[in-house]
């Protein structure tokens, strides 16, 4: 068990370093000169040169990487070139928004996806199965931003039921917060629900054919116990693993969905940062979400391990 965790952590370290290198190299690919952007209307070469000096923009790349990496480890992720805020503060201020959206979306995804997957596996080959598959296929095929726009048009504009966009902190008003989160959570959640449904379905179909399910039936257990205890407990492993990875993806920020609903999370932060050539913020967001993704991968591995008695004992 501990050997397993140790091994996983050991693998995570070079992966994280690789991410940091890639994140740092990202700025080479971005067009435009940050010093020029920062100078704004000022075109005096001396001022621009001073800005270059101040932000180490004249140093060789490897030195710049060293500076940057040292900063990352000491909690100095740089200053946003645009609004002079520390990148770490900026990230921390957006984290609760993205976290809340991710959790709500995941709840939607699990409720719809796992239930639909269970039903379609148990009722394999029937209209229920067919219906669930059609919905899942639609869920995967329909782009998030389109579904978002359609929801805004119908629910907000035509029926006036929910606010079209924006964000209110739950600390201010929980009900107002939820009103604004319902649609984006639904948009993100249904897309993942489709994936979860497919995974639950195939895992359940496999489990239902297992010998131990026949044994459970031979014991005279009710079909409910056979399905929900014996089969589902074994189907749970791939479902949980997949769910954790999807949650990691959600935490990386939903660029299009946050844009459509103007939710100030990581997705919107990175888009704004890219448009403003705000390197430090772009790097910060990518590094942070990359790390989160690796952590979620690690958790997925850990859950896989914990749910599997054959590995655990």
């Amino acid at each position, binding site marked *: 068990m501990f050997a397993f965790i140790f091994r996983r952590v050991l693998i995570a370290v070079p992966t994280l370093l690789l991410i940091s290198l890639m994140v740092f190299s990202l700025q080479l690919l971005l067009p435009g000169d940050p010093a020029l952007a920062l100078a704004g209307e000022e075109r005096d070469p001396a001022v621009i040169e001073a800005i270059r000096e101040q932000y180490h923009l004249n140093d060789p790349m490897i030195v710049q990487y060293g500076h940057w990496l040292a900063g990352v480890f000491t909690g100095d992720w740089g200053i946003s070139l645009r609004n002079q805020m520390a990148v770490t503060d900026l990230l921390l201020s957006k984290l609760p928004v993205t976290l809340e959206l991710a959790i709500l979306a995941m709840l939607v995804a699990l409720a719809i996806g796992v239930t639909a997957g269970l039903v379609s596996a148990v009722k394999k080959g029937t209209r229920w199965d067919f219906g669930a598959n059609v919905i899942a296929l639609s869920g995967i095929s329909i782009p998030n931003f389109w579904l978002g726009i359609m929801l805004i048009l119908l629910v907000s504009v035509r029926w006036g039921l929910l606010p079209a966009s924006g964000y209110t902190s739950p600390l201010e008003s929980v009900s107002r917060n939820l009103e604004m989160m319902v649609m984006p959570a639904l948009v993100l959640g249904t897309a993942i629900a489709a994936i979860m449904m497919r995974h639950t379905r195939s895992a359940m179909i496999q489990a239902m054919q297992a*010998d*131990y399910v026949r044994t459970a039936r031979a*014991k*005279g257990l009710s079909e409910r116990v056979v399905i929900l205890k014996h089969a589902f407990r074994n189907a749970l492993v791939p479902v949980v693993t997949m769910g954790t990875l999807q949650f990691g993806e959600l935490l990386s920020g939903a660029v299009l969905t946050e844009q459509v609903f103007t939710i100030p999370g990581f997705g919107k932060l990175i888009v704004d940062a890219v448009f403003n050539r705000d390197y430090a913020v772009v790097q910060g967001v990518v590094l942070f979400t990359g790390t989160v993704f690796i952590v979620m991968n690690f958790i997925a591995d850990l859950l896989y391990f914990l*749910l599997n*008695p054959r590995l655990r*004992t």
Partner: protein
Amino acid sequence: MTIILAQHDQAPARTKRSDAMNDNVLTVEGLKVGFRTDKGRFSILDGVDFTLRRGRTLCLVGESGCGKSVTALSIMGLLAENAEILGGSARLNQHELIGLDRHALRRLRGDAMAMIFQEPMTSLNPAFTIGNQLIEGIRQHSDLEGAAAREHAIEMLKRVRIPAAEQRMGEYPHQLSGGMRQRVMIAMALANDPGLLIADEPTTALDVTIQAQILQLIRRLQHDSGTAVLMITHDLGVVAEVGDDVAVMYAGRIVERGSVTALFDDPLHPYTIGLLSSIPRLDDTLTRLSTIPGSVPTPAEMPRGCRFSTRCPFADQHCREEVPPLAAVGNDKEHVVACWKAPIEHCEECSESREVMA
């Protein structure tokens, strides 16, 4: 503890096991089962008949695909979804099982009748402990709860000779060997003292040394409890070891049935004769091991008459056209055979082919 056990042992026994009036635990008559596939419907079982008495072991013998397991699963009501029972009857203590609604059937499964399977490695749920899976079955069919159910589960593990029973309760199936897992399966099956135990090739997947242990265990437990055992096997060695009676199946029909001694001493059906002569003998290193030529016809090309006629050296036009009934040909009325030519020793036109067989 002993009090609980005693109650549990005696109370259901009177109701579950057959009355003194009638000793037949299981009566199967004319059982017909078919499969629906993309290519159409196929008959798998075509009129299977046998009876099984209390405390006795009936072996259902035949090669793969002859319908042994389908017979067992039909009785248990565990047939695959694409299979359907087309006719016939299976009565457990005079209660008809065929056509019984699934709730009533569920109450009988694991209680009045239980089953163990061929693959001990996959028949236990890998995600739950041995104790959990044992107690679950006990609670389903008895009033035992909590500590009492647990005690009974441990008692069952002890009864199937599992060492350190209490410790095993908390272990997972993967921590046990194949033989131990099959013991757990037996403990689970017998936990509610069933009148009928169906064992579907329970030793096929096990090491030879373990096979004998498991067979002896089933025999001993049966002796203690009076449970009737329907033993499904393709291994005539198993039949000789545990069987009282034997029914030989071929392509969905019983071709010969009788006591084990009668059948081994005087096999009547050409297929049975072929099966018996294909057993390797240690004391005979000179003659080539005999095999039955040809293979079982597919459901699509099943002959109208005797289904063995395509491989039988004695078969003639009559055999191919008319289905032979199961009937006694000698003094032993219990020893029946479905063959127009039986007994072959008395069949005059068979003399040439007899040379071939010998």
